[in-house]
């Protein structure tokens, strides 16, 4: 728990190397951390995220069996799968493998896809938002129309189309989800930057003869990034759900034996009547992971909002 908070502080420490904002920004983050530490929802979110991250990192040590180990196939009959037991907490899947172990290894896929796609989408989105926010005129118009086009297509549909064109693979799922997140980051950053540009301190900076680059990178951008970071945390939950959705539709890793939550759901649908746990287990995992990021993200948003006072 404290690790995550320290992380945020450390991350912010990097942000704080930018001149004058240090005083104001640092104060805001310190206050935010204090608020988060007193918010039960943020604590629950942080615990959930920490658990998933630890499980993902230490999967081989935590999982009782290898994800592809089908030693228990001889106990499986068509439509009848061994129920949970002391050895197999979540039972055995139709291919004779331990469901609990597969769920644990599935955490890796979900978090990997989530983090990589959000970082990728965030970088591109921030880049576009920066362009639009820093230059007005035709640059802004061109970039924002492009972003509008991306926004006009429903995000999951866009992701399905991209994943289908690139062919089923982990990389294409990451790219697909990243692309759908680009317009959100771009619009958010641009809006923030426009707001900052009109503020007095920017006016003062301009008046004192600072170059545009210094103003944008040294003042406007650092002050506009907070909502983007919050959005990034929130979008992780969407990315995890989208990743599961794409896997459910058969658009993730081409090898069906890869343990993935979304794919585990697909595989379980024929056994819903006889072995509902096969679907419930990955379903709960997806919900908890998404919930963790949503709780923390929402609380961060509230904590970092200077106008928000409990």
């Amino acid at each position, binding site marked *: 728990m404290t690790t995550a908070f320290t992380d945020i502080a450390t991350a912010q420490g990097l942000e704080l190397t930018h001149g004058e904002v240090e005083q104001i920004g640092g104060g805001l983050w310190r206050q935010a951390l204090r608020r988060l530490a007193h918010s039960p929802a943020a604590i629950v979110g942080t615990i959930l995220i920490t658990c998933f991250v630890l499980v993902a990192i230490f999967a081989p040590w935590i999982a009782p069996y290898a994800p*592809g*180990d*089908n030693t228990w*196939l*001889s106990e*499986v*009959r*068509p*439509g*009848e799968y061994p129920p949970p037991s002391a050895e197999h907490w979540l039972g055995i899947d*139709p*291919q*004779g*493998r331990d469901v609990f172990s597969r769920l644990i290894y599935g955490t890796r896929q979900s978090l990997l896809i989530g983090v990589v796609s959000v970082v990728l989408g965030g970088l591109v989105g921030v880049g576009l938002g920066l362009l639009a926010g820093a230059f007005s005129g035709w640059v802004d118009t061109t970039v924002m129309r492009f972003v509008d086009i991306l926004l006009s297509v429903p995000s999951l549909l866009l992701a399905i189309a991209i994943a289908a064109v690139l062919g089923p693979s982990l990389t294409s799922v990451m790219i697909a989800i990243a692309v759908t997140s680009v317009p959100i980051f771009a619009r958010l950053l641009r809006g923030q930057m426009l707001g900052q540009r009109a503020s007095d301190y920017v006016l003062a900076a301009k008046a004192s003869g600072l170059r545009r680059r210094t103003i944008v990178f040294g003042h406007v951008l650092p002050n506009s990034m907070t909502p983007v970071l919050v959005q990034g945390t929130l979008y992780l939950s969407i990315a995890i759900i989208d990743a599961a959705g794409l896997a*459910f*539709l*058969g658009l993730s890793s*081409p*090898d*069906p*034996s890869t343990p993935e939550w979304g794919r585990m759901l*697909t595989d379980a*649908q*024929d*056994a819903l009547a*006889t072995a509902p746990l096969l679907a419930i287990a990955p379903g709960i995992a997806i919900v908890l992971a998404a919930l963790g990021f949503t709780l923390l993200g929402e609380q961060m948003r509230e904590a970092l909002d200077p106008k928000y006072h409990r």
Partner: protein
Amino acid sequence: MILTAGAAAVAAAMLASCSGSGASKTGGGDSGGTFVFGSSRLPTVLDGAYVYDNESQRVIYQMFDRLVNVKPGTTELTGELATSWEVSPTGLDYTFHLRDGVKFHDGTSLDAEAVCYNFDRLYNLKGPAQDLAEYWRISFRGFAGDKDSRYKSCEVKDPATPVLHLKERYTPLLASLASIGFGIASPTALKKYGYQVELSGDSMKFVGTFGTEHPVGSGPFQFKSWDPGKKITLERFDGYWGDKAKINTLIYVPIADGQARRQALERGEIDGYDNVAPQDVAALKGAGYEVEERPPSNVGYLAMNQSFEPLGDLRVRQAIAHAVDLDALLKANFLAGAVKPKSFLPPTFMGFNPDVITYDYDPAKAKELLAGVSNKKLDIWFATEVSRPYMPDPKSIAETFKSYLEKVGFDVTLTGRPWSPDFLAGIRNGKAPMYIVGLLPDMADPANFFTLFDNQPKRWGPLPKGLLTHIKQAEEAPEDKREALYKSLNQELMEDLPGIPYVHAPTHLAFKKGVTGFVPSPLFAESMATVSLGG
């Protein structure tokens, strides 16, 4: 995949509602009514000359008669259009005596002239049509102009007596003539509508409309309409020479997903369907549906194309065979009637050999065999969007193979491809290093299984020359010599191990309560004429 299933279910629901199906509305008493059959997909075309798949066979079988057929539910040959026949001692001349007064659906007579027209049209197929005419190629090997064609001529001895003359003996010919590939079609319709095929890109285009809009045979059902992708409607043929069909209208609707088929039956949208998933059989029986079982006459196998490394190495193929626990695989994926194969040929066929070399589950031995082998990378292809009796869920079987093979040290990639055309074409063109597929026989002869190995050489890579020669010899040997030849062929095949046969699977069909008269056949020779909807 899920989208397809959902879409199919919706399509089926719409179809059922607009066709006014369901016996509750149209069915009545012991006869009449509309029967809606859910198949996993619709036929490719309704011309038996051009198809070699079970879903096409199912529909074509109802509309065409053959010279000979198998007795319902058995592999025993009996006359159909021919009431009797003689084969010359050389095995080169087949004289058939035709049934009197048989008419095609278009009212023209089915006589010796018509029979010979059918054989001559197949012999004279040109270009891409030859590639499709699989039954002809298996039985007669070549077409007009090919030196190695077995076909010589068809002679009209008198209007009721056609005689087939061969250049070379092919002992399983009668069994082969009982397949849909040799259903007798109306020459008038063939000439009027045409049966030309053109190559269009990678796929075949049926230019002549005989097989798409005007299939005319002499069977108990006649063609009414085909709404592509949605349904095919057949009607009872009242001029049929034998017992008339009990149902008036027979509709085939495609529902790709097994679960969606079951739900369509449970909702009353269809009256019966094929390829019931093994896990559904007990539940459907329990709920009062009529469930019919076909005997396990098929084979499912994991093929190993020897053009790909490391599969060219016999030790590797043997290691693969020893690595897999077939008993567990069978129990987990199939019902109790499934048989663990000794070789590719199921036990119900002549020439079955129970004493062939076997490869027991022995991971230690597999590892031992792999001792000096450095390349342990395997790529197994499996089909998507399909379920077959020998692979109710191809992906599940592929994952099972992968788990076993990785346990003994292989590095296995699974590659899923849509059944048609990608998967089947990939096999045919020799692009799949290993693949999970099977064979549903439609010929009461072991040749049906061994043709697999000499008809499409690219799918196996280099096979021993001796094996291929012996397959040909067994096809051409006199009847009394063949059993011994096939027995030894089984042994030869399992020694070379071009694949691992993993199942002879029973298959199931489910029907609405009260449906009677369906006779499951080991060769899929299943007439819907005897089926009635009941009360």
